[in-house]
């Protein structure tokens, strides 16, 4: 009707003059529309907010701020400012230090931890924090209804996994309990060298029981929101900002250096750089927010901080698929990978080529040597596997995922790898770039041949890397299973003596990177932050890239070296943001 009506109208509009009445109505209609638009604008969301003391650019929008739901580093940085655990990490070196627990004792066999909670710790609403809160929170993490990705962090505790799976239904059988209001006891299956670090992990944080029980999944929208950490959540607008305000009742409030901190979700490196360059942000602290091609120009600047970091970029082989089921073929690919050239080209020489999987700098451990770049040996290995000069080698695909905006380091690495393998081995590899979710799905289903991968350590221990390739690990994703490797890792996990433990891990890693080679490490991540030391204080570089927001502050008056007539940036920023 409308289409036909319009068509006839158009065909005949030439023979018609509009009368004045229609004029007036039309004018009124247009006026009305314009008025509506104006009202919309006035109603729109231009807010007048006081400027923050510190503005931090933080990577992707947090999926959640529930410490037991979050999975990403950027989210955990925020949740750690809101909800404390028994243990905190030292901002200077990321070592465990007292949090809600003032002190603790460990039994001689290393299996029983007794924590003594502070008596002066209260929620931001004023209620005391007791060990019953800790117990409830940990049980919540183990409640299937919470659907916590990281519930597994608690599985080292006696019967925790059985409780999760419903095989144990007696609460008292689970290895943690509130002994009294300020004493909390944990019993582990086997001694864990990194258990204190684990206690600082967000999944093990203390959460407000009553608020959660009253509001369900939307509990973070409740006001007032009781927090146990250094800040309260003043505002959380998706893709806009998270605004933190100092929690005046925090037991360590004396060390909270800033009143208001804004945490911005930014996912484009160029936007992050622009925000920083124009003074709209004080700190950029996500390694993915540094444009790789500018690395050489950035690295010389005093406000650009880089440091060793617990992360490895590597590629996986699907070892169930011939000819990749032959370790010689996998070794050939590894030996043909010129990591130095890769770094030289793609990150302009800034980076650490990796020949082993566990990053250098991890505590109490040093890796065995792995396979370096050796074209001769690579060709020999391929020939030994029956493909001399690459002849007869099937066309394999290298799978990686797409990133928007062209900021796609994975793609660039793929292009370089393709060329290296062509040059050195004479094999032709097809590239396959797919969406991120499809990528992870196909990696899990082993629907790939060679694929890009990376791993960031959860805590400072070799185990967070080497556990990955146990046959039973859900994150193995290579189809590779090796009984000797599994036994070595299991033995190392149970070992308390640091030297012997490191020795076992070293044997396991040798199998992984030099003998069987289901994966090939490419480079170790560097942590990157940019902030101006003369204006911002309270951040220290450390291997976990751990920077508690509590200690970060903006210097009121710049340090003497910078006082040379430089106007304080803060004024300018306040003007543009108001």
């Amino acid at each position, binding site marked *: 009707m409308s289409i036909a009506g*319009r068509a006839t109208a158009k065909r005949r509009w030439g023979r018609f003059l509009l009368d004045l009445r229609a004029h007036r109505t039309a004018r009124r209609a247009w006026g009305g529309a314009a008025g509506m638009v104006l009202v919309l604008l006035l109603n729109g969301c231009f807010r007048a907010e006081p400027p923050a003391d510190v503005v931090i650019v933080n990577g992707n929008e947090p999926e959640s701020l529930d410490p037991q739901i979050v999975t990403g580093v950027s989210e955990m940085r925020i949740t750690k400012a809101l909800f404390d655990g028994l243990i905190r990490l030292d901002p200077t070196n990321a070592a465990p230090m007292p949090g809600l627990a003032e002190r603790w004792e460990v039994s001689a066999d290393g299996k029983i931890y007794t924590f003594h909670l502070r008596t002066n710790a209260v929620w931001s609403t004023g209620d005391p924090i007791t060990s019953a809160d800790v117990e409830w929170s940990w049980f919540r993490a183990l409640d299937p*209804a919470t659907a916590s990705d990281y519930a597994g962090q608690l*599985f080292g505790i006696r019967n925790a996994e059985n409780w999760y799976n419903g095989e144990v239904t007696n609460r008292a059988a689970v290895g943690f309990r509130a002994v009294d209001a300020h004493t909390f006891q944990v019993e582990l299956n086997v001694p864990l060298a990194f258990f204190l670090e684990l206690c600082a992990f967000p999944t093990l944080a203390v959460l407000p029981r009553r608020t959660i029980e009253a509001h369900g999944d939307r509990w973070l929208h409740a006001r007032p929101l009781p927090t146990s950490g250094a800040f309260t959540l003043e505002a959380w*607008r998706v893709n806009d900002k998270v605004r933190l305000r100092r929690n005046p009742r925090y037991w360590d409030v004396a060390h909270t250096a800033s009143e208001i901190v804004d945490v911005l979700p930014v*996912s484009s490196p160029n*936007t992050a750089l622009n925000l920083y360059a124009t003074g709209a942000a004080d700190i950029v602290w996500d390694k993915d927010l540094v444009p790789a091609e500018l690395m050489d120009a950035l690295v010389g600047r005093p406000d650009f901080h880089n440091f060793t970091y617990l992360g490895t970029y590597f590629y996986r082989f699907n070892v169930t698929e011939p000819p990749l089921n032959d370790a010689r073929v996998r070794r050939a690919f590894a030996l043909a990978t010129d990591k130095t050239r890769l770094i030289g080209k793609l990150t302009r020489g800034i980076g650490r080529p990796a020949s082993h999987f566990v990053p250098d700098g991890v505590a109490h451990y040093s890796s065995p040597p792995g396979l370096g770049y050796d074209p001769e040996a690579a060709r020999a290995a391929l020939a030994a596997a029956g493909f001399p000069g690459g002849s007869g080698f099937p066309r394999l695909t290298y799978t990686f995922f797409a990133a928007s905006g062209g900021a796609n380091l994975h793609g660039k690495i793929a292009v370089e790898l393709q060329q290296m393998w062509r040059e050195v081995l004479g094999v032709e590899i097809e590239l396959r770039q797919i969406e991120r*979710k499809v990528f992870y799905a196909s990696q899990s289903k082993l629907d790939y041949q060679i694929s890009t991968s990376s791993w960031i350590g959860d805590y400072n221990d070799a185990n967070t890397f080497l556990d990955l390739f146990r046959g039973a690990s859900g994150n193995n994703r290579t189809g590779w299973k090796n009984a000797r490797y599994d036994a070595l890792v299991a033995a190392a996990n149970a070992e308390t003596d640091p030297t012997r433990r490191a020795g076992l891990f070293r044997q396991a890693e040798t199998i992984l990177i030099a003998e069987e080679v289901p994966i090939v490490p490419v480079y170790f991540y560097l942590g990157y932050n940019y902030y101006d030391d003369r204006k911002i204080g309270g951040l220290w570089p450390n291997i976990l890239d751990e920077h508690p927001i509590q200690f970060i502050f903006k210097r009121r008056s710049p340090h003497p070296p910078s006082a040379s007539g430089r106007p304080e940036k803060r004024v300018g920023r306040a003007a543009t*943001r108001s």
Partner: protein
Amino acid sequence: MYFLKRILWLIPLLLVVSGVCFALLRLTPGSPFDRERRPASPEIERQIAAKYHLDEPVWKQYGRFLRDLLRGDFGPSLKYRNHTVNDLIRQGLPVSMSLGALAFCLALGIGLPVGCYTALRRGRWGDYVGSLYALLMVCVPVFVLAPLLVMFLAVRWHWFPVALWGSVRHAVLPVLALGLFYSGRVARLMREGLLNTMHAEFIKTARAKGLSETAVLLRHGLRPALLPVVSYAGPMLADLLTGSFVVETIFQIPGLGAAFLNGFLNRDYSLVLGLVMLYAVLLVFLNLAVDFIYTLLDPRVKYE
């Protein structure tokens, strides 16, 4: 009566649109909880799926979606797990709407005069310059225009903030990036509409009365010439109000455009469905408004 019927038509439309989208989303490979690292045990994965009813048969999930839809509830977001889809729309819609409305004003504000001017100057230099402007705006991809605007107007010359949302100054660059493209489209439609009316009988009559060319066109020709622009303005406004992925991503604006595409890339089924529903409703109502304005501009158009 006609309008009432059109509004009722919305119900089957939404049903079909949601069904199609639901099916397509479930057919796409990858699921919301496929991530770089899997939980420590398969049991945890199972429990997460169960919490969001992803383990049920698809028809049952669709039934659940429809039941919630009746109550105006789109369910929890699968990516932003502390928010419901309604929360996200409530936060993002006002932002996208003010951005879109401003861009709409800009598009009409530039497009209509340029369109009229080029039509009046047909075949002369003014026409070529104006038409080239209009075409350029249509041809330069937003993802090129926006970074260039930022580079020069914000980073080099410090006229405007580089990104973020919060004040009128923050809105200038995104509105430009978003509005300029549509201003090109509007200018082209306006020019064509006006050129078409120029050959019409009643214009010849008016000319015969001795009015000047410009006066003839502006007084008599403008109204019917607006019709193509008006019919384009409906879908355009729907597009603008629901936001643009590129502009919102580059300027870090908390609107719905970025949420839409990211929602799909994250396989946030409920968010994408909710936004598609919103877009469909908006589109139907704006097309209705277009029809209504038609009746005002051209009284011969009657709907029964």
